[in-house]
């Protein structure tokens, strides 16, 4: 089902979605765009390239409360924080970010114990994917082509959106998407020309150039395994790294978290909070022992996790080439160059 709406009426669409549930959409903030929960439909702004942080927080918020309790009270007075979510709409996610949800699904949803929070959020959400603007060149940091992701890949979205001049074309990809498109009265029917434009756009998206190299998961895994003990290599590539958490926090596929108890007077909450393998205390044990004390060990862990461990464990590279880590790295470490380097080493 193909629908359309004029981009300058986007706030009407937003309002319609807000009537049905939570709407997460790109909003221009002081320092750039981000997905935020929309309070005012006028906030929604599709004139962005990509957001600072990835939209993973829609399903895996920075902070998730598990249990509320009061210290000094009997243990059975603790209450599990209910997770009754209204339907949510993630509006405007770029294809590479949509791809990241599939990768995260494997970890949270399809292996071993299922993470109930991720699962429920994923199930209740409708994803409106949004093709990159093919007229404009890719950002220098981006390299999703390397990971086999096109600039207009609709896979993974429930509804996929393409910009056509002043219009936004919305095509349903899944039954869930079809259902919601059918319900949205603010949309107009797409014409045959729109349909053609849409299909060509998707095709063109495959050719859209970002930085690209030939990266076969098995090969990079093997290469990284061989390189594992090459301390010289890791020390060299990590020589600029300052071990902050920017790359992991903006990354769409980083999922490490910490579980902690926060208290105020007698109230307490057990919650999980994002953590980063780049932090020095990430692996610090209660005994005081820390297996990763050097910067190079932490960077090695991060790279291996994405390009080797994840491949060994789940069969896919845990990176979608969105380039956020490179763009926001305070010292301009470029994961793409690093992988290139590793392949050559």
């Amino acid at each position, binding site marked *: 089902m193909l629908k359309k709406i004029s981009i300058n009426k986007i706030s009407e669409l937003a309002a319609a979605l807000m009537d049905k549930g939570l709407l997460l959409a790109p909003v221009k903030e002081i320092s750039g765009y981000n997905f935020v929960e929309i309070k005012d439909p006028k906030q929604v702004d599709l004139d962005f390239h990509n957001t600072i942080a990835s939209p993973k927080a829609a399903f895996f918020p*920075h902070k998730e*409360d598990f249990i509320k309790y009061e210290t000094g009270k009997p243990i059975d007075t603790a209450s599990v*924080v209910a997770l009754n979510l209204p339907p949510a709409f993630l509006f405007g996610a770029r294809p590479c970010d949509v791809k990241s949800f599939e990768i995260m699904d494997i970890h949270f949803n399809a292996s071993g114990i299922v993470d109930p929070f991720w699962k429920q959020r994923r199930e209740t959400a409708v994803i409106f994917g949004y093709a990159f603007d093919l007229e404009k060149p890719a950002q220098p940091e981006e390299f999703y082509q390397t990971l086999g992701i096109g600039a207009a890949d609709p896979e993974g979205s429930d509804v996929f959106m393409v910009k056509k001049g002043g219009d936004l074309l919305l095509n349903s990809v899944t039954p869930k998407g079809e259902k919601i498109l059918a319900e949205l009265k603010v949309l107009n029917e797409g014409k045959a020309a729109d349909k053609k434009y849409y299909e060509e756009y998707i095709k063109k998206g495959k050719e859209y150039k970002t930085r690209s190299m030939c990266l076969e998961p098995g090969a990079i895994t093997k290469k990284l395994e061989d390189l594992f003990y090459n301390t010289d290599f890791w020390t060299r590539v990590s020589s600029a790294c300052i071990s902050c958490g920017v790359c992991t926090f903006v990354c769409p596929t980083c999922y490490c978290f910490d579980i902690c108890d*926060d208290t*105020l*007077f007698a*109230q*307490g*909450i057990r919650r999980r909070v994002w953590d980063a393998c780049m932090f020095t205390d990430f692996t610090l044990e209660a005994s005081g022992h820390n297996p990763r004390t050097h910067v190079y060990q932490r960077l090695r862990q991060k790279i291996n996790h994405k390009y080797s461990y994840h491949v060994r464990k789940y069969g896919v590279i845990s990176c979608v080439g969105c380039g956020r880590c490179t763009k926001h790295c305070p010292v301009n470490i470029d994961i793409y160059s690093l992988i290139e380097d590793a392949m050559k080493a």
Partner: protein
Amino acid sequence: MSFEPKILGIACNWCTYTGADLAGTTRLHYPQNLRVVRVMCSSRINPSFIFRAFQLGADGVLVGGCHPGDCHYNTGNLYARRRLAVTKKILEFAGLEPGRFRVEWISASEGNKFAEVVQEFTAQIKELGPQQKLKIEQLQEKA
């Protein structure tokens, strides 16, 4: 009911705390809004104690130490003076009312000064009203 502020006092063991005791011994009455924590020296005060106190809902924080030169540990309060001065500037620039944080040198013999300072400071805090900027209203749940 009128506003009864919560005021945190942090007093050094040797001068201000003893001075506060003296105020008691001489039965000098002052408002009961001040709750004193005893530390050995005003230099023990970590600036984060003060930030935390405001977060926990203190409407004012009063620090008391020995007069400069009279520190039981020779120079503790001279360091404290610098550190607390910086603390005050930080709070001010963050936008907290300057009057909510005060440092006073009160010796062991200045029971009357202690009572006066508490009286005056309490009145000042009442004037300023409840401190709501840094205070954590409740344990933050969903963002």
